[in-house]
Structure formats: C-alpha cells, structure tokens
C-alpha cells in the first residue's frame, strides 16, 4: 500500500490523479489515524467521517468518468472551526455557538470543495481565535504532537496539530496576530498568512476585521503554494478583498529567486529571544547566504522588543495590535446576543438587555470577555484618542518601517516565536504573558503583509523551531520561493513528531 501518510498534499493529489490510489482509500487511511490519534491530541471539534467518505466516493466517480475533478481532487483537508460550512457545525470553539449550523459556505472552504478536496472535519481553536495556545477553547485544549504536555500554539492549534500528526493532508487556519504562523512553528509544519485581502474573509467568523486572514497549514512550502493559490482571489462578497490577479504560485516557487537580499531586523535579536532559536535563525540565514543571497541588516524601530526594568518583554507593536484587535473584536462580537442564533440564557429576565447580558456571560469564556471589555474601554468616550486613535497612528509607523525595509531587501527573515512550545498551563494565568508570545508575528498583521513560517530545526529538547519570512504586499511568490529554496538547501522539511508511526514503505 502506498505510504499515504508519508506524502505531501501535492504528492497525494498526483497519486490520486494517476489512479494508483483512490480518494476513498486515502480518506480512510486518514480517518483511521484520526480514530487512533485524536484521543491523545484533541485536534478536532468535529470529525465529518461519513460525509468525507461520501464526498471521496463522488470524486472517485467523477475521475472514473474522465472528468477533471479539480487541482485538489480527492485530497482530505481539515478546516478551522471559525470557517462557516453549511454542513456540521461552526462553533469557533465557543459555548455561545455550540450548536450553530452556518446557513452558507465560506468562500475559502468553497474554493477547496470546488477544487475537489474532501473536508475531513472542523478543527479546535482558541475561542473566537483569541489566544496563542488553543487553551482558550471552550471545549478543551489541543495537545502538541511533539510533546503532549505542551501546547500546539494558537489560535489555529487544532489545524497545526492535525497536519503534524498526519490526521489530514493539510488544513486551513486563520491568522489575526500570528494564529497560523505560531502554531505552525510550535508543531513543526509550514503555515502562510497571505497579504491582507488576498483571500476572501466571507464566511470567516470575524475577530479583528482589519487583521484577519485565512491561510494554509501544510507539510511543506509547495503545498502552501498550491493551497494559497486555490483559496486566493477577489470576492465581491468581501469588500476588502483585492482585485489583483493570483499568480501561479506552485510554478513560481520553482523559479530560482535570482539575486536575493534577505533583511534581518536588528531589533528582533535581543535577549528576548531564546538562545537556541537565535542560533537556528542565524544558521538559516547563513544557509541561504551560501546560495548567493545577500544578508542585509534592516531596522524596524517600531516593532522593537525590549525588556523593561522588571525584566518583562516590552513591545510597541504588541500594545498597538491588542488595542486595535480588541477594539475591532468588541464590535464584531456584539452580534452574539442570543437573538438570532447561538446560546440564549434560560434564566428569567426582565427585558431584552438582561437577556443579552446573561446570554453573553454564560456563553463567552474569560479571555473573550476580557478582550470585549478592553475593546469597549479603549473605544469609549474619554479614552478613544489616547488608545484607539493613538494605536492607529502607531500602526502606520510600523507599516512605514516595513516599506523602508523593503527598499533594502526582498524578504525579511526573523524568528516566528520567542520560545519553542511552552507547557500546557504555563502562561494561562497571566494574559499579558500570553500576549507577548506574539511579538514576532503581530507586526505582519498590522502592516497587512504576507508571512510564512517554516521549520528550521529542532531545539535540544526536541521541539520544533520555526523561522519566518515576511514579504512586501502581494509578495507571496518571493516568500514562497525563498521558503522553498531553504527547504532544498537545508534538507529540513516534513518533520515527523515521535507520536507518528509511519505505515507502509519508508
């Protein structure tokens, strides 16, 4: 039996297209792994086994009939549970949406389906995408397949875990402050946040509307390129989506990048950064330099990271991000009021406002409540100028830094995270400590740029280390090209966590 679990999505797609394996066979292989491994890692909110097998059979029939079933025909993919699907439920891992059945398909998932993919299930996440560990899920945490006592990262922890532990060929996540890239780094897989507006947000449950983007989490860069291409494109139903053409990304990444200037932000290599990660990123830079790339020191002053007098990490960008994200979240989550859908309190109420207040109190987790309240605080009379308005100005300064940097380099190379995956429970009691896990990823969302995380090594404890490549707006081709180049030259790709036992050959 061909080693389905050892294949990338692209390889599996090719095997199915050649007829050497059917989609039903491949889907069954993954579902068997889910049955075995899911109890250990809890990556899924909902596994859609019957539906997946039925769909796989349909795709097999289409291919038998000689039809072109699409560039992803028959490949099993999981999607984060904040992507609306008109099948199963869409809960955002929140009790307030525990039984919500979306009446429509999100554009991104719809494109996967139109391309022939088989949707295996909806993955666990931090509630409403608010978190960096998936510990904020209303239905229990997901565990890192590299070490079950550690977090997989968040908020797309379920998706990253599902890919790393070979429970699906790839997954979709969403990224508002690092929620694709950070779990990808913690789980030793690749993850891309596209340029803001590259992928339609129609059907993505909104958290921070000026920051959110949907993107792929995959075994390698080639798979990232393929999935990004499938889900990208203008959508009239998302007025923030870009009209720019989508390039042929799988073809683009095989073209050598030519003379390449790689920017290393000097502010990112302070003592805030774990020593091993620092070394791994510099080794990656040297690896790329050996191919002829030029390493250039650049400066991102408003994204700089300091330690304050008490030794705590300090970053303007983190403050800016959280003000903006929480303000947007307080508005976006106002719709969960128990009126049209979602949880409604069963307690007696004197009127509609009490119904809102009790329903929301019962349905939302603590982190969500915190963010809604902070958002309302920073937007309220007397505080708007000092916080929200100020943050929007700092946002422009952060973006300007990148614009200047991209005059000197083609792509920025930096860490994805300040540490490797931390222990479950370690940061859960102090919100601020958790927020600081995002220091290397958030500027990218604030500036709307594309960012790719890919594994560049393992720590001494055996945990994956991720490196991040950031591009100019619509710079997916260069980011993916450099990522692919790194994979080829370093040989680092398709890392396998200890929990995975490979079946078949290899």
């Amino acid at each position, binding site marked *: 039996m061909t080693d389905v679990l050892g294949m990338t999505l692209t390889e599996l797609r090719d095997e199915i297209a050649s007829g050497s394996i059917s989609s039903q066979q491949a889907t069954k292989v993954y579902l068997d792994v889910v049955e075995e491994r899911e109890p250990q890692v809890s990556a899924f909110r909902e596994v859609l086994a019957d539906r997946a097998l039925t769909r796989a059979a349909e795709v097999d029939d289409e291919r038998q009939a000689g039809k072109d079933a699409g560039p992803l025909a028959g490949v099993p993919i999981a999607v984060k549970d904040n992507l609306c699907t008109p099948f199963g439920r869409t809960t955002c891992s929140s009790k307030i949406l525990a*039984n*919500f*059945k979306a*009446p429509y398909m999100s554009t991104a998932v719809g494109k996967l389906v139109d391309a022939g993919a088989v949707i295996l299930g909806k993955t666990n996440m931090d509630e409403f995408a608010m978190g960096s560990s998936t510990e904020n899920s209303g239905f229990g945490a997901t565990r890192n397949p590299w070490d079950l006592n550690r977090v997989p990262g968040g908020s797309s922890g379920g998706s990253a875990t599902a890919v790393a532990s070979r429970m699906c060929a790839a997954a979709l996540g969403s990224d508002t402050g690092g929620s694709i890239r950070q779990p990808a780094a913690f789980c030793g897989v690749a993850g891309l946040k596209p*340029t*803001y*507006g590259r992928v339609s947000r129609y059907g993505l449950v909104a958290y921070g509307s*000026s920051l959110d983007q949907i993107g792929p989490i995959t075994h390698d860069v080639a798979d990232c390129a393929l999935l990004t291409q499938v889900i990208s494109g203008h959508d*009239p139903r998302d*007025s*923030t989506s*870009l009209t720019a053409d989508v390039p042929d990304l799988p073809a683009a990444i095989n073209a050598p990048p030519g003379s390449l200037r790689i920017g290393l932000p000097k502010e990112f290599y302070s003592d805030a950064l774990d020593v091993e990660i620092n070394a791994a990123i510099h080794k990656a830079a040297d690896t790329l330099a050996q191919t002829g790339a030029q390493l250039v020191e650049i400066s991102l002053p*408003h994204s700089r990271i300091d330690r304050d007098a008490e030794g705590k990490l*300090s970053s*303007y960008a983190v*403050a*800016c991000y*959280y003000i903006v994200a929480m303000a947007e979240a307080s508005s976006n989550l106002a719709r969960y009021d*128990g*009126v*049209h*859908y979602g*949880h409604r309190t069963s307690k007696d109420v*004197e*009127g*509609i*406002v*009490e*119904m809102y*207040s*009790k329903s*929301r*109190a019962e349905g939302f987790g603590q982190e969500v*409540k*915190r963010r*809604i*309240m*902070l958002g*309302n*605080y*920073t937007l*309220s009379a007397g505080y708007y100028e*000092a916080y929200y*308005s*100020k*943050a*929007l*100005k*700092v*946002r*422009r*300064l952060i*973006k300007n830094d990148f614009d200047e940097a991209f005059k000197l380099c083609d792509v920025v190379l930096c860490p994805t995270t300040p540490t490797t995956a931390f222990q479950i429970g370690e940061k859960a009691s102090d*919100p*601020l400590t958790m927020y600081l896990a995002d220091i290397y990823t958030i500027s990218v*969302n*604030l*500036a*709307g740029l594309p960012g790719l995380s890919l594994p560049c090594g393992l720590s001494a404890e055996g945990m994956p280390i991720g490196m991040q490549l950031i591009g100019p*707006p619509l710079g997916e081709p260069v980011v993916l090209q450099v990522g692919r180049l790194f994979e080829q030259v370093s040989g680092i790709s398709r890392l396998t966590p200890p929990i995975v036992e490979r079946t078949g050959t290899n």
Partner: protein
Amino acid sequence: MDKSIDSNLVRHIGRLSRIELTEGEIRIFAQQLAAIVEYFDKLQELDTENVQPMPHAVEVYNVLAEDKMGQSLSPDQALANAPQRDGDFFRVPKVIGDS
C-alpha cells in the same frame, strides 16, 4: 494616563459590553485589565504628531456594488438557528426602559 481601573469602572465596562459580571469576576478583571492598560500606555512614548491613523491594512477605496437582486437566505434558513421562533419572526423578551 492617570486613570485607575477599579471595580466601578469594570462594572461600567461590563454594562457597555452587555456582559453580566459576578463580583468575583469584577475584582479579577479589575486587576488584569489594569495591568494590560498600563501596558497600552507605553504607546504614549511614541511621537505621532503628524501621523495619519491607519485603520485598514491595505487601503482600498469606495468599493461599491450594483444595486441588483441576488441570492439571499430564505426565512427558514435565516430562522434555522433561532433560539425562539414565532412564525417568521425571532421571538425576544420585551425591550423596556433605558437599561
């Protein structure tokens, strides 16, 4: 910024947010929110005198749509998740006074 986030302010924010809070939550949130807001105050260190705010990540302007009929949800689809349905309506408790 010389504002303290005390229990009264948390209660007020809770009302603005339409989230009922227990006394215990009010106390804990007061501490946590105060620490986070103090962190936000760092931004005051930056000079943003002549800087334009940036509410959008990538700026697009005047994205308009033609005013023509397309597909929309049927009443049954729209009401499918209703906690309480009354014919073609969502049933809710009455709106009273000025809460």
